[in-house]
């Protein structure tokens, strides 16, 4: 196995992991504030279909991505109204949002089913992308990959260094106390749910405009659910979310590469690899029970109303 092959696998890993990373970062942010939105798959699909329709109507990928993000926000808006203002059960609402998104995206995309467009291509960063190995790995991707890294760094800084991050955590741990010290719980949660929707929508756009530039029903193939699982197994830490998303991507690529190389292992076992590897690694990392309890937002999925 030469170096080029290895860097090609790692670079494919990054592409495979990017939609997961975007969704998982968004959902982590939302869960940190004590809201559980299980509607990721639905928001992902709406993002994908909205992005695709806009891009193929306008011939502009920028408009496509804007529409994808708007689609995700629109879905999140419904969720936010129902759970934050009408205090509905978050789990049931999230599931309904997914079912709604799957159906609505199929309906909206009916005329675009199987159509294709010229997708977003790579934007190598000048000079840096010429560095052997590292260049191909980090500086030879499409714009959305760079965006996802920026978001990751932003998220990390948010919870490590900023007051806003502290406020979000306070709201997620104990909304009553947060309210008592003057944090506007509901508006904060509302804004975060919308940001989460925007990221899921962007991830949807990544699928339909970059990864495989086409629209077909159910094209997300369960990635929203995997991202949800990654957030939990990553125990709500941005670095572990990144690790989980890429680990899942790496194992998916590895299992395809291993099959092609004729590795003598059942394809079914190999297909389990991404799930098993991601769960095992993240569970080992968060095996400390006390720490795990501390990292889970205490008020997660609990409706809250200002008295």
């Amino acid at each position, binding site marked *: 196995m030469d170096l080029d*092959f290895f860097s*090609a*696998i790692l670079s*494919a890993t990054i*592409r*495979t992991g990017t*939609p997961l990373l975007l969704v998982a970062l968004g959902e982590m942010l939302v869960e940190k504030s004590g809201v559980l939105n299980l509607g990721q798959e639905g928001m992902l699909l709406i993002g994908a279909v909205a992005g695709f329709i806009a891009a193929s109507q306008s011939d502009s990928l920028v408009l496509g991505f804007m529409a994808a993000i708007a689609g995700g926000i629109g879905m999140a808006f419904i969720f936010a109204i129902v759970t934050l203002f009408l205090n509905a059960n978050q789990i049931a609402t999230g599931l309904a949002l997914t079912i709604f998104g799957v159906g609505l995206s*199929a309906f909206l995309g*009916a005329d675009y*089913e*199987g*159509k*294709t467009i010229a997708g977003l291509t790579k934007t190598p960063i000048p000079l840096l992308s010429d560095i052997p190995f590292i260049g191909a790995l980090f500086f030879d991707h499409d714009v959305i990959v760079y965006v996802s890294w920026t978001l990751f760094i932003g998220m990390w800084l948010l919870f490590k260094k900023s007051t806003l991050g502290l406020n979000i955590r306070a709201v997620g741990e104990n909304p009553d106390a947060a309210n008592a010290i003057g944090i506007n719980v509901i508006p904060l949660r509302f804004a975060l749910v919308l940001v989460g929707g925007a990221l899921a929508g962007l991830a949807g756009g990544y*699928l339909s405009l970059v*990864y*495989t*530039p*086409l629209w*077909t*029903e*159910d*094209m997300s*193939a369960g990635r929203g659910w995997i991202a949800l699982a990654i957030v939990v197994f990553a125990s709500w830490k941005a670095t572990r979310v990144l690790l989980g998303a890429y680990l899942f991507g790496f194992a*998916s*690529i590895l299992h*395809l*590469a291993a*099959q*092609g*190389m*004729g*590795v*003598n292992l*059942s*394809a*079914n076992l190999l*297909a389990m690899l991404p799930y098993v590897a991601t769960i095992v690694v993240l569970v080992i990392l968060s095996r400390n029970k006390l720490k795990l309890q501390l990292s889970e937002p205490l008020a997660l999925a609990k409706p809250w109303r200002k008295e």
Partner: protein
Amino acid sequence: MKIITSFLLFFSLLPLAMADKKPKPLEVGFVYVSPTGEAGWTHTHDLGRQHIEKVFGNTIKTRYVESVKEGADAERVIMQMAKGGADLIFSTSFGFMNPTLKVAKRFPKVTFMHATGYKRAKNVSTYFDRIYEARYLSGVIAGHMSKSGISGYVAAFPIPEVIRGINAYTLGFRSVNPKGKIKVVWMNSWFDPAKEREAAESLIRQGADVIAQHTDSPGPVQGAEAAGVYAIGYHSDMSVYGKKAHLTSPVHNWNGFYEDTVNQVLKGTWKSTDTWEGYSANMTTLAPFNPAIPQSVINQVKQLEAQIKAKTLHPFTGPITSNKGKILAKKGQVIPDEELRKMQVYVEGVEGELPN
């Protein structure tokens, strides 16, 4: 009182009188597993539906339900169609098999046609095409176009239908490229565009310069296009997904078969049977060729196609050995249909082992 009676009489006889004037058109229903779309399995069936609409005009009426989930949903949809007055129902996915039979039992007067299944009843026929014939020919083209002698194959599930296709493709490939190697990657799903594309790219990284597929999405063709290698699509013409990459695709053609079936039902000659035909019945064919294919190759393929059509050439004619060295067919011997139907072995040239 008299007026009322005559009124009642008039209205009760009205439908009879009207029915007399205009015969009720034959209602033909189609149940699809996925959206009709621009390409793919369901698309080919919908082309068949449009074809019979054109041919029969007002004597028939068609309708379809798309994206029907296999299982309980399918039973409900087929039941509603039968209740709604359909005379002939095509259910076009393997997973519709048991629902179709269940509904057929309750509606003995309705004719059912189930694609890809193996269970029949008095009013249920099964049908499928010999797509492996076209796969063999696409293998011949791929064998000529490949420089590295390595072809990748993105495959859905290790079931006989898919394995048969891999083997036919491999036999075609190696008939013109004797040292050719086929690398197979199993997806364990029929449809995941992103994963299929990654599989194609992973095969390309391992030296494959033609990517064939037995999955439903255009992901592999897109992957080949992006990497600048060739691709063989599946189901229907997939050239829109890769103008340069797409060499051709093995294609299903249900038009003539559907026309015949409707004719039989109209005439009352329809009987329950199993149809498994290919080129000779015009049920299988290849999509238009990529201009990059040299004329000499096209000529050869056309010649082979004519032989398959005339049944003088069978893709599974010996000598054929498995990739473990076991003899599957001696020289001149043809692997019989029963064995093709339950094929669970790779022919020589396919790398790796079949997953069990």
